[in-house]
């Protein structure tokens, strides 16, 4: 296989690491030296071979470790995966979409063969081989949403469309930036975004919803979102906040480079063919400050973004207390030179 998978953890001893290749392909989210909300959607089409934007569902060196982490989170808290009764068909839609995409984009790792509704799925990295009947739940070990997302990196929300709104009626959410599927399931687009400051007043959600209601089959879209995470924790859930919260204090100028991670979410949206639901994968990528500043353009830019961020956003994203220390660290890597447009490193 072409990818060498890491043996690493996202908890306890935190052995998660990015290889040099993973740093180079990290989806750095800032295309300029400042940040404010926008409806930053673009077509989810192939961009830059080797980047996380090349394929519909990116598989990288963290795949096996992330799937092991997900299994542990689900064992501890099964409510992280839920599907309201009318969403089963959307789960099958998603399963089909992912299996077809992975078999097409990574034929050395995944294969799918079909004979009518008799399907045969092979996932070599996870050593899974499954023969099942498409649309027959009794032929899989669990529901279709849970089955396929136990084998796919990133969180997944399935959004039902009715009454000119989107409803978060199913999901597999184990690597979230501090929101609870168990609390938010059944909410509409405005309700689940209710706690986000400023963006409602800016009209962001009205415009985004209008766009998404018209999302077409075969024309997926994507955006990047970001936050900050201390230690390479994937499970920054509100459920476990009292366990990971204490880690946010106690960093020093000597440890912040290794401990502080920029957490980037590659959010993609796909219209599903049978259910007319929208699949909303939220794929989290983590990169330590130390690794980020190894790319000079990113070191300069990250310093300027963190310096200029509105207080309300730094509070909402949960790093206001650590902002001075971040700036002290990052300022060492900002010589004031101009930076080039766009998110990618200078060649």
């Amino acid at each position: 296989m072409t990818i060498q998978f890491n043996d690493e953890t996202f908890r306890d001893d935190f052995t998660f690491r990015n290889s040099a290749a993973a740093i180079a392909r990290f989806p750095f989210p800032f295309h300029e030296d400042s940040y404010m909300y926008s409806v930053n959607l673009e077509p989810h089409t192939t961009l830059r071979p080797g980047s996380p934007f090349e394929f519909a569902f990116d598989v990288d060196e963290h795949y096996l470790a992330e799937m092991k982490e997900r299994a542990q989170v689900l064992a501890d808290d099964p409510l992280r995966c839920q599907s309201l009764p009318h969403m089963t068909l959307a789960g099958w839609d998603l399963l089909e979409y992912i299996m077809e995409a992975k078999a097409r984009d990574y034929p050395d790792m995944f294969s799918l063969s079909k004979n009518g509704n008799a399907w045969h799925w092979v996932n070599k990295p996870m050593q899974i081989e499954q023969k099942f009947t498409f649309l027959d739940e009794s032929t899989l070990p669990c529901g279709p949403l849970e089955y396929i997302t136990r084998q796919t990196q990133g969180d997944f929300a399935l959004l039902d469309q009715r009454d000119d709104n989107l409803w978060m009626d199913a999901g597999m959410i184990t690597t979230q930036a501090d929101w609870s599927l168990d609390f938010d399931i059944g909410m509409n687009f405005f309700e689940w975004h209710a706690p986000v400051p400023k963006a409602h007043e800016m009209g962001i959600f009205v415009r985004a919803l209008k766009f998404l209601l018209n999302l077409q089959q075969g024309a997926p879209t994507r955006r990047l979102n970001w936050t900050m995470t201390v230690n390479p924790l994937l499970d920054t859930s509100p459920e476990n906040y009292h366990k990971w919260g204490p880690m946010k204090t106690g960093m020093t100028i000597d440890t912040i480079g290794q401990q502080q991670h920029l957490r980037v979410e590659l959010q993609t949206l796909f219209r599903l063919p049978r259910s007319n639901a929208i699949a909303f994968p939220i794929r989290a990528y983590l990169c330590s400050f130390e690794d980020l500043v190894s790319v000079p353009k990113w070191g300069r830019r990250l310093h300027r973004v963190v310096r200029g961020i509105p207080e309300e956003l730094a509070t909402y994203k949960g790093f206001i207390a650590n902002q001075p220390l971040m700036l002290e660290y990052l300022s060492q890597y900002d010589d004031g030179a101009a930076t080039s447009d766009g998110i990618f490193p200078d060649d």
Partner: protein
Amino acid sequence: MPKTEFPPAIRSRPVYGVLEPRGGKSHLLIADGAGAAAILDLAATAPAEIWARAHIIYIPGASGDTYTAQLKALKPAQFYAGPSYAAASQRIGDAFAKAHMGLQVCLSGTESLMGQAMYAATSAGIPHTAIQTEHRGSTARRMQCVHCKGITENVTTDPFECSHCGLNLFVRDHYSRRLAAFQAVCVDAEEPGNVPEKVELFR
């Protein structure tokens, strides 16, 4: 006691109206405490004939006997007074399960009562937009601890202690209709033991 006025809040927080007469084949009215006064105000303007096809489910709580006689005097086809929502919940579920097209649903009183009855109604297939609500009485909140998932009723202070796991929790405005509860999150997660002083926010 008039309808409660709430300050503007985030989009997941429910908003309540004023009960008004609407034509329907039958009426189901569920209230607690001072919510009875909203039914009595409705009776002042509603056609008298609606009560012959009305079912009132009332949980007096601290209001005691204040409103019971007046509610009975409306002569509803069915009248029930019970000690708690939990005690009445089977009856409420049954009423929604047996409901027919043309039922008008009116909920009045505390957010806890309206939220739970709203969830029972929507679970039975009644769209939440077709249900009338009016807030009266206590603004105490029904809170779900996001950590242990336990519900603490009648929360009046911020922060408060989870009645199940004991964590110190702060009160959010984020509201789940499915749980009929606001979200409560650990207040001293980042500095265990550093708990702000309690402030009485709700009465």
